[in-house]
C-alpha cells in the first residue's frame, strides 16, 4: 500500500464500504494512477490528489456500485412479485386451515421481517452493505414459501387456487435461489 495518507485513507474507505472484489478493482486503478503521476515527476501529495480526482469521490463510487448491486435488483424483483404470490395465497383462504394461531402469528411476523429487509436493500442508494440484506432475506423467503407449501398439504381440499398458489411460491423459490449466488459473490 502506498505511504501517502490521502491514498491510504481512500483505500481504507473502499475496503470498509465495498466487497473485497470491487474494492480491489478500484484500488488497483487508484494506485496505478498514483504511480503514473509520481513517474511524471509530481510530488507525492500532488500525485495523490490527482489520482483521487481521477478515481472520483468515494461516496459517488460506492453509490454507483450500490445502485447496480445484484442484491438491490433482486430485492426489487422480489418486492414486485410479492403481492402477486401473496394474492394467490389469499385466494386459498389459508387462514381457515387447521394450523395453530401461534404458528400463523410467527409466520406473519417472519414475513414482515423479510419484507422489511428487502425494502431496505431495494431502496439503498449509498450503502452496498444494505443491499446484502437480500442474501439473508432471500433464503428466509424460500423457507417461508417452503413452510406454507408444506402447510398446504394439510389443507382441507385440493383446489385450483391452492395449485396456483403453490406454483407461484415454487416459481419465487426458483427465482430467489437462482439469484442468490450472484448476491453472495458480488
Amino acid at each position, binding site marked *: 500500500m502506498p505511504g501517502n495518507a490521502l491514498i491510504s485513507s481512500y483505500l481504507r474507505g473502499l475496503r470498509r464500504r465495498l466487497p473485497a472484489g470491487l474494492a480491489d478493482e*478500484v484500488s488497483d*486503478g487508484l494506485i496505478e494512477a498514483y504511480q503514473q503521476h509520481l513517474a511524471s515527476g509530481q510530488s507525492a501529495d500532488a500525485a495523490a490528489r490527482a489520482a483521487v480526482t481521477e478515481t472520483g469521490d468515494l461516496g459517488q463510487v460506492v453509490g454507483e456500485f450500490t445502485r447496480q448491486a445484484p442484491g438491490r435488483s433482486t430485492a426489487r424483483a422480489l418486492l414486485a412479485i410479492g403481492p402477486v404470490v401473496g394474492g394467490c395465497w389469499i385466494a386459498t383462504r389459508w387462514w381457515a386451515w387447521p394450523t395453530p394461531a401461534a404458528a400463523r402469528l410467527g409466520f406473519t411476523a417472519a414475513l414482515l421481517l423479510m419484507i422489511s429487509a428487502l425494502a431496505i436493500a431495494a431502496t439503498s442508494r449509498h450503502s452496498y452493505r444494505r443491499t446484502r440484506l437480500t442474501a439473508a432475506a432471500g433464503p428466509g423467503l424460500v423457507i417461508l414459501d417452503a413452510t406454507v407449501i408444506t402447510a398446504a398439504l394439510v389443507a382441507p381440499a385440493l383446489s385450483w387456487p391452492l395449485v396456483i398458489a403453490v406454483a407461484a411460491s415454487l416459481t419465487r423459490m426458483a427465482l430467489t435461489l437462482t439469484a442468490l449466488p450472484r448476491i453472495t459473490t458480488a
Partner: protein
Amino acid sequence: MKAEAQVLKGHLDMLLLATLENGPRHGYAVREALRAASRSRFDLPTGTIYPALRRLETAGLVKGRWSAEGGRRRRTYELTAAGRRRLAGDRAAWRDFTSVVSAILEPASCPATP
C-alpha cells in the same frame, strides 16, 4: 472543454465496448484509452467506469478475469462474442443516426416553405 458527463453516460456502454475492441484492458487502461481517443474531452472518473464494466459483464457483453500486478489484484476485461455483436450494431446505428442529423443540420437541407 469537457463533454457533458450526463450526455456521455448515455453512450458510455458503446464507448467502453469500443475501447476493448482491440484487446483486453483493465479499468484504468480503459479510462486512459477513452481519454486519449477523445483528445482529453472524455475524462470520466474511473469510479464511473468500473461499475459500468461490471454491468456489461453481468449482461454478458464483456468477460473479466483476475490477475496479479505489482502485488495487487487486477481485473482485466475483454469483449465476448455477444459484446462484439452489440458493438457492431451500436456502431451501425450511431453512424446512421449521425448521418441523418448531419444532413438535417446542413444549412440548405430545410428550405422555408411559402
